[in-house]
C-alpha cells in the first residue's frame, strides 16, 4: 500500500467525517439547548437534498439549489418546531423518540408522494467536477476538497456564532439553565425555533452537498442519522467541539477500517476469508468504537453532563 493511496484514503475519511459533522452539529445543538432527541433530523437532510435537486433541475444552477436546500430545510424545521416539536420539550425521551419516529414516517412517505418513487438527479456543478492534482502527485476530486473546505468553514462559523454573538450567549445560557434565561427576559420560544431551524438548515445543506455525489432518494437520511447519533454520543452530547472530533474519528474509522481490516487479516487467513471477515468487522467498527468510548467515558469525550 503506497503512501499516496494512504493519504488519499485519509482525505476520504476526513471528507466523510466533515459531512457527518454538518449533520451532527445540528443534532447536538438541538439536544444541548432543548434537551430533545430528534430522530427526524435525517428527514431534514433528505428535504435539503430534494429541494436542491428540484431547484437545480428547474434553474440549472447548483448554487441556487444549495440556497433552496438551506431555505427549504430551515423552513421545514421551523414549521415542524412550531407545530410538533415544541410540545415535546417537557416530555421524556421516550415520547420524543416516538414522536420524531412518527415524523420520519410522515416525511418519507410524503416526499415519495410528491416526488415519486424514483431517485432524483443532482450532479456536481461543472466548475467543481473532475479531479485536481495535489502536491505529491495525488489526484483528488475537486468537489470533495470543496466539501472539506465548506465543512471547516461552517465549523468556524458555528464557533464564532456561539462564542461571539448575542445568539450564541443565549444558546450557551440555554444549555446551562433553561429556566434562568427565560426569567432574564429572553424569548425562549423564539430562541428554540431559531436553534431548530439552524440545525435543520445545516442538515439540509449537508444533504444537498452529499446528494450531488450520491443518490437523492427517499430513505437517504436514516443511515446518516444513525451515524450522526454515533458521532454526537462519542463526542459528548451538546458539545460542538465533540461533534467535530467525533465526526472525524467516525469518518476515519469507517473509511480506513474498510480498507485495512481485510488487508490486515490477510496475514492470518486466506484472501477470500480475510475479505469477508474483514468486511463484516469493518461494518461493525464504528459501533464498536462507540461502545468502547462510552464504556470508558460514559458521557462521551467532551460531554459535560452525564
Amino acid at each position: 500500500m503506497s503512501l499516496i493511496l494512504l493519504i488519499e484514503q485519509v482525505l476520504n475519511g476526513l471528507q466523510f467525517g466533515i459531512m457527518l459533522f454538518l449533520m451532527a452539529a445540528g443534532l447536538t445543538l438541538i439536544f444541548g439547548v432543548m434537551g430533545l432527541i430528534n430522530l427526524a433530523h435525517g428527514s431534514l437532510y433528505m428535504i435539503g437534498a430534494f429541494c436542491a435537486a428540484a431547484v437545480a433541475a428547474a434553474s440549472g444552477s447548483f448554487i441556487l439549489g444549495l440556497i433552496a436546500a438551506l431555505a427549504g430545510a430551515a423552513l421545514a424545521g421551523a414549521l415542524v418546531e412550531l407545530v410538533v416539536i415544541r410540545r415535546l420539550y417537557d416530555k421524556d425521551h421516550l415520547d420524543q423518540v416516538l414522536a420524531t419516529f412518527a415524523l420520519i414516517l410522515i416525511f418519507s412517505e410524503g416526499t415519495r408522494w410528491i416526488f415519486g418513487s424514483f431517485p432524483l438527479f443532482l450532479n456536481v456543478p461543472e466548475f467543481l467536477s473532475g479531479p485536481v492534482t495535489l502536491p505529491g502527485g495525488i489526484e483528488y476530486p475537486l468537489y470533495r476538497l470543496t466539501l472539506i473546505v465548506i465543512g471547516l468553514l461552517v465549523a468556524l462559523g458555528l464557533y464564532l456564532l456561539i462564542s461571539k454573538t448575542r445568539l450564541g450567549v443565549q444558546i450557551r445560557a440555554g444549555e446551562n439553565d433553561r429556566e434562568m434565561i427565560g426569567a432574564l427576559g429572553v424569548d425562549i420560544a423564539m430562541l428554540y425555533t431559531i436553534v431548530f431551524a439552524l440545525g435543520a438548515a445545516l442538515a439540509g445543506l449537508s444533504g444537498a452537498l452529499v446528494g450531488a455525489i450520491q443518490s437523492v432518494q427517499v430513505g437517504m437520511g436514516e443511515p446518516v442519522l444513525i451515524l450522526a447519533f454515533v458521532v454526537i454520543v462519542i463526542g459528548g452530547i451538546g458539545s460542538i467541539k465533540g461533534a467535530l472530533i467525533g465526526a472525524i474519528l467516525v469518518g476515519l474509522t469507517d473509511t480506513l477500517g474498510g480498507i485495512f481490516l481485510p488487508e490486515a487479516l490477510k496475514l492470518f487467513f486466506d484472501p477470500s476469508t480475510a475479505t469477508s471477515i474483514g468486511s463484516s468487522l469493518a461494518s461493525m467498527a464504528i459501533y464498536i468504537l462507540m461502545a468502547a468510548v462510552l464504556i470508558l467515558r460514559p458521557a462521551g469525550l467532551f460531554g459535560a453532563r452525564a
Partner: protein
Amino acid sequence: MKLVTMAAVAALTIGLSGAKAEPVKVGMITTLSGGGAGLGIDVRDGFMLAVKQSGNEDLEVVIEDDQRKPDIAVQLADKMIQSEKVDVLTGIIWSNLAMAVVPAATAQGKFYLSPNAGPSVLAGKGCHPNYFNVAWQNDNLHEAAGAYANFAGHKNSFILAPNYPAGKDALTGYKRFYEGDLAGEIYTKLGQTDYAAEIAQIRASGADSVFFFLPGGMGISFLKQYEDSGVDLPVVGPAFSFDQGILQAVGDAALGVINTSQWNKDIDNPTNKAFVDAFQAEYGRLPSLYASQGFDTANLLLSAMAKADVKDADAFREALKAADFSSTRGSFTFGPNHHPIQDIYVREVVKEGDVFTNKIIGTALTSHADAYWSECNM
C-alpha cells in the same frame, strides 16, 4: 356462505367438465412503498398491462405491498394462501424475500412465478416443480458481463459488490466466465453510499477495467463518484444499475457505460415493440427491464390458462413449462429447473433527446442457462 360458494363452484365444474375457463386468482406480493418501490411498481405495471390487454376476465389479481420486509412478505403470503385462496403467487423483487416466501408457498401446492429474483438455491438443490423463474437466475447477467470482459480484451479487472449473498453470487458469476486476472476484489457495506475509498483503491490497483454490482441507490452513488474521480477505466455492470428508473438520476456519468441485460426496449420483435409503445401510452414513461419481466410473467400465466385448468396442477404445470407465449425477449424457453434459457445482450447507455436509455450493441451469451440446473432433482 363460503360453503354455498364452494358448492356452486363444484356444480359448475361438473357441469362444464372439460372446459378451461376456471378462474385463476393471482396474489402479487411486491415492493410498493419505501426505498425500493420503483422496481415493484414497474413489475406491477408491466404485469397489469398484459392482464388488461388480454381482456381475460377469468384472471383476478390481488396486489399487496411487502415494504421490502421479509416478515411482511411471509405474512402476506399466508394471507393470500389462507384467506384469499389464490392459486398462483408472483411479484417478489428481492432474493431474501423470495427465499422467505417461495419454499413454503410451493410446499403448500401453490405455483410461484418469479418476475425478478432468482436466488441460486431455488435453481439448484432447492428447486421445485411449482416454481418458475421468468426473469433470470441471479448469476446470469454477471456471467454475461464476464463473457463480455473477455471479448473486450480486459485482462486485469477490479471487481466489487455489496457484502451480502446476492453480492457474492454476482462476483462468483462474473469470475465463472471471466478469464483474466483480478486486480482486486472488494465487498462493500450493504447500503453504502460513499465509494471514495474503493475508487482510490481502484486507481492504485493498476486494473484495466472495473466490474461492479451495486443495485439501486448504491449504483447511482458509485457511478457519479467514479465519473468525478477522473479514473477512466472502462466499467461493466449488470443492468440493475442502468435500468430506466435509475438512469435519469445518474445522468451523464452513465453515458457510454456497458451493461448486460436479457432485455432492452430495442430488441427487434413485434411483441416487444408493441409492449414498449403500449407501456408508454398507458403510464407515460419508458418501461424498464423489470416492467418487461412483469409483462412476460403475466403473458406466461395467460398462456397456461388458455391450455389447462389451474386446479389440475399437473396439466397446468406442463402448460407453464411449455412457455407457449411470445416474450418481449424473443425466444424464451425453460430449462429443466424451470429457469429461463435465453440470450443475454450487451447494452450501452445512450442519450435519446433528453432521456437516458440503453442501446443493444451485441450479444454476450446465446441460449444461456444457469450454472445450477444439474443440482436440481425434480
